[in-house]
């Protein structure tokens, strides 16, 4: 019956939506921020830890929301590790292009996020996928020395 939504709900999304690996606060963290979609009630909080070189070493989150937003937060938590603020800003912009247009031809490092590309066919769901990234960037921007 729902064959045509398999683009949106790929196995990895359903799996991550159900069993996210990073859905917890970090005990020790350098920054945290919340994201909020007033129109649908989705909320997320993201915690970030850095290593000495200023690259992200760990990300955790707590979210309430749909499968897309939880899966997106979880995949983001992994994708962010090892990156600096500058790279993450670029990654976030590329990701936004991916989920809006379904494609990001000149982008690197989006492989693990690719399963979310199907969101582009569901305009009202794009924000579910991008919300965790907004929270991540807010955390990083709010952090002294990482603006």
């Amino acid at each position, binding site marked *: *019956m729902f064959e045509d939504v398999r683009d949106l709900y790929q196995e990895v999304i359903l799996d991550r939506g159900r069993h996210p690996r990073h859905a917890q606060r970090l005990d020790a963290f350098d920054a945290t921020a919340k994201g909020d979609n007033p129109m*649908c009630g989705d909320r997320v909080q993201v915690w970030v830890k850095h290593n000495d070189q200023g690259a992200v070493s760990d990300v955790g989150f707590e979210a309430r929301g749909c499968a897309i937003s939880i899966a997106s937060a979880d995949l983001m938590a992994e994708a962010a590790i090892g990156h600096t603020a500058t790279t993450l800003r670029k990654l976030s912009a590329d990701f936004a292009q991916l989920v809006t247009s379904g494609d990001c031809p000149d982008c690197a490092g989006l492989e693990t996020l690719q399963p979310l590309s199907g969101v582009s066919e569901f305009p009202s769901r794009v924000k579910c996928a991008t919300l965790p990234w907004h929270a991540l960037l807010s955390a990083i921007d709010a952090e002294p020395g990482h603006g």
Partner: protein
Amino acid sequence: MNDRMTHLDVALLRRDFPILSETIRGKPLVFLDSAASAQKPRAVIDAMVGAMEHQYANIHRGLHWMSERTTEAYEGTRDLTATLLGANSREEIVFTRNSTEAINLVAHSYGRGILKPGQAVLISEMEHHSNIVPWQMLRDAHGIELRVCPITDAGELDMAAYEGLLEDRKVGLVAITHMSNVLGTYTPAARLCALAHEYGAKILLDGSQAVVHRRVDVKSLDADFYVFTGHKLYGPTGIGVLWARAELLEAMPPFLGGGDMISSVSFEHSSWARIPHKFEAGTPAILEGIGLSAAIKYVNAVGFDAIAAHEQALVEHALARLSPIQGLSIIGHAQDRGGVISFTMEGAHAHDIATLLDRAGIAVRAGHHCAEPLMRRMGLDSTARASFALYTTQEEIDILADTLIRVREFFA
């Protein structure tokens, strides 16, 4: 068709709503989102088109044929609305943009003009944001206390608590929904009014949902203010209604200033027009008033007894079909309920449910339904909501139920 009819020929009525023959990605549209906004019958479309094609001009101050006729048509809506609600007179009907503006009008004009700092406004845990935020703004601007009547787990008002909150007679105004847009609960409006008056409070009923499903009579309810919104009553967007007792409207200061609401203007001083015009500044929603007339005539012709009976049958059928679905929980179990059913499903967020249903051509709402405090009260972030109108069929509910079983399997 007339009021005494209690059985609707729904197949026939559906032909009055052109949009119902649309398909969504090849599947027939199953529109179960009428509580958000109802679809429009041919009669409403024709009335608006008729005005734009044949008889239109700005109203009230025009001495020419087009203006006179348009004024008659627009002011005719006031008569029809007064009759619809059982008001004492046409002067008690104020047109606004929607329910939200009607409540804001009362919050500003009655709230700041008549209520005194230190008095309280009493709302409930199951209000729509439109019946919460204006009172919060009044609280913050004018030193009014905001009290909240709790609800039971079944989703009914806690009547003992209600009375308790009135007891110290500090409540100057009660503002409570006549039917919940999330739980479907009809509140015991006549009893709420009687108690409010017993303790010296005025009462506003938010009839945004209630007025669609049953005949409302503000006099027999003994309410003081009643609001509803045209677009949920099969009318156009852009027009809503505030009914209030004439003596209240007389006593209230105006809300918006401008053309049409004045008696005379000088730079030093302006004096106000009579009610209801005092509250209607600027060019009103003329075409929308004309559309609302057609909507009211339409529901009157179908008959509220028949509408209420039809929707009652739909609710029973829906409860019977949805309740057994594994993992599905129905939110709210009021004794007295209208054509709105909220539910959640284990393992599937409401947004995901809505997206999957949409793929099957079924339109439901998902989210907090502009009732965040109610969501918190029920321990939820969101629900999916199916809502029914006079054009909804049992088959559509069957399609919903069958599809929900598939949704469940999909996310299992």
